[in-house]
């Protein structure tokens, strides 16, 4: 059984009388440990799909199960609890909380879990270490470069040790060299820690780190290519 299973996944937005369906009848399996790159033109429903996988949006129809649990049936509160342990989300614009230091930002998801202060400290320190940003732990987001901010954001996403990492154009705002090191970091998390990664990207070069590339067009998967080093 695949880690993530989507069946007839559909999301419709109603805007007054008209309805938009950015995602229609999507079937998709993602195996545990996969590194999936999701491509497609603007407005094709990539973010919509990612939000459904992250449990921050809910499907209008169809089913979504992750590690055997039917996520689409969870109530709001249950969904929040599920998110806090199962997924890490990485944004294009980092989305760190500006009034909190790097350390405090990474600590946030752990506040939801029953955990002693010292245990929390150890986990945050390990996450910052894993993304090589320990020396900046006391800095505020405005004191960090874009690449450093994204590292902190990745640390925040992995600190709860979720099985799934979701990234929406994580290199979209970074220069080439920084983007490359960010991709190497994600590949390492995928290879060494076995995290399943689904990454939305517009940049074909970043797909070379992925083992699967999916193309989305008008809410449907159009082809499924196997990429990788080749």
């Amino acid at each position, binding site marked *: 059984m695949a880690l993530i299973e989507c069946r007839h996944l559909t999301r419709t937005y109603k805007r007054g009388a008209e309805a938009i369906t950015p995602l229609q009848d999507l079937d998709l399996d993602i195996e545990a440990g996969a590194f999936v790159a999701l491509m497609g033109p603007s407005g094709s429903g990539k973010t919509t799909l990612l*939000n459904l996988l992250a449990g*921050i949006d809910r499907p209008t129809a169809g089913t979504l199960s992750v590690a055997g649990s039917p996520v689409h049936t969870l109530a*709001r509160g249950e969904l929040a609890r599920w*998110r*806090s342990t199962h997924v890490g989300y990485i*944004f294009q614009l980092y989305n760190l909380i500006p009034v909190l230091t790097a350390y405090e930002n990474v600590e*946030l998801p752990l*506040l939801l879990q029953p955990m002693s202060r010292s245990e929390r400290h150890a986990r945050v320190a390990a996450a910052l270490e894993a993304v090589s940003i320990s020396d900046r732990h006391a800095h505020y987001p405005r004191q960090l470069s874009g690449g450093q901010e994204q590292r902190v954001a990745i640390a925040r996403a992995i600190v709860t040790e979720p099985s799934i990492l979701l990234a929406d154009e994580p290199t979209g705002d970074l220069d080439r060299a920084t983007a490359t090191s960010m991709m190497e970091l994600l590949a390492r998390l995928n290879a060494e820690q076995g995290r399943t990664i689904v990454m939305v990207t517009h940049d074909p070069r970043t797909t070379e780190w992925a083992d699967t590339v999916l193309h989305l067009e008008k809410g449907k998967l159009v082809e499924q290519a196997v990429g990788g080093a080749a």
Partner: protein
Amino acid sequence: MMRLLRVCPTVLRQIIRSPIRSALTVIGISVAMYLFVSVEAMREGVHTATQVQAGDTTLVVYRENRFCPFSSRLPQFYGDRIERLEGVNSVVPMQIHVSNCRASLDVVTFRGVPRDELGTALASGGKITDGSVAAWERRGDAAVVGEALAARRGVRVGDRFSAAGITVFVAGILETDHPQDRNIAWVHLPFLQEAARRGGTGGLVTQFNVAVDEPAHLEAVASEIDALFRHDEHPTATRPERAFVGRAARDIVELVDFAGLLAWGALAAVFALIANAIVLAMRDRLRDHAVLQTLGFSGPLIAWMVLVEGATLGLVGGLLGAIGAFATVRVGHFSLTMEGLNIEIASGWSAPLVGIAAALALGVLAAIVPALRLARRDIASCFRAV
């Protein structure tokens, strides 16, 4: 629900790390709460001084239709006739001399009592903390000074002080919880009659303070006294002491009731300040809250954080304002005096505590609507909105 506590430091950081906005809000709240607590202390003081209470046993006998100590004159021998009435424990004739008959914040009131009556006059729960009654009895120009008056004028035993053209020697300081006695200088009756230059008559006094044996007899004894002198040359009007103060101070009572509106206004201002601060902060943090929700913070947890923020702002502002007002009242020993009667501004804990509790409650109240709206927001659309 330990997580409710674990997120509190994050809320405090959000407040502290927007120092200008937080400071402005807190200053606004504390100014409003300062006003609220001051007005409440004044109202409480007026209430204590003018509302007859269950255990009261003191009557004041005044000249009928006279409203100022300068015009109330009663023959001193009335005292003997009053004393013979059933239910009367003691009668103290008093000459009242004030430096100012109008409502004022610093009036010195002299009460002249016969040499052997000071003990009786002070019996209602007071004690002399410095000096003694004996020292007072020894000197003709001696005064026992109420603690509030002594503190306001900064006088001690052995000092002399003057007011209203009279100079007295301080022979004792009186500590009492009787508001009328705290602000008074007790002097010898003949000395005051002489000093007040009432034609050297010696036989006239301003009023009699009558102690009855039981609170229940207050009204009955009052009517008896007035009946006694109804057809006399100097008819009397007898009232319970606090009612007497309330009548004399009716202008102040009305003014202070009106000031109660200010207190409500201050509360409304606090509500508006906190609501405004919260609404602006929410708008600023639209994205932050969506991020928190993405991380797994539930809607109710985020609503809780907003409530904690409102409560904290209210509490800090309330504390500053209440402590400021409390300190002002404590240090200032303010009392409103009119017609020789005192209304002390309450310096107890109750007004500040009410103020702090009100500010806290308003903080929570002002945050409820933004918090609930936030808790219901759809996360995905939050990211699109910003």
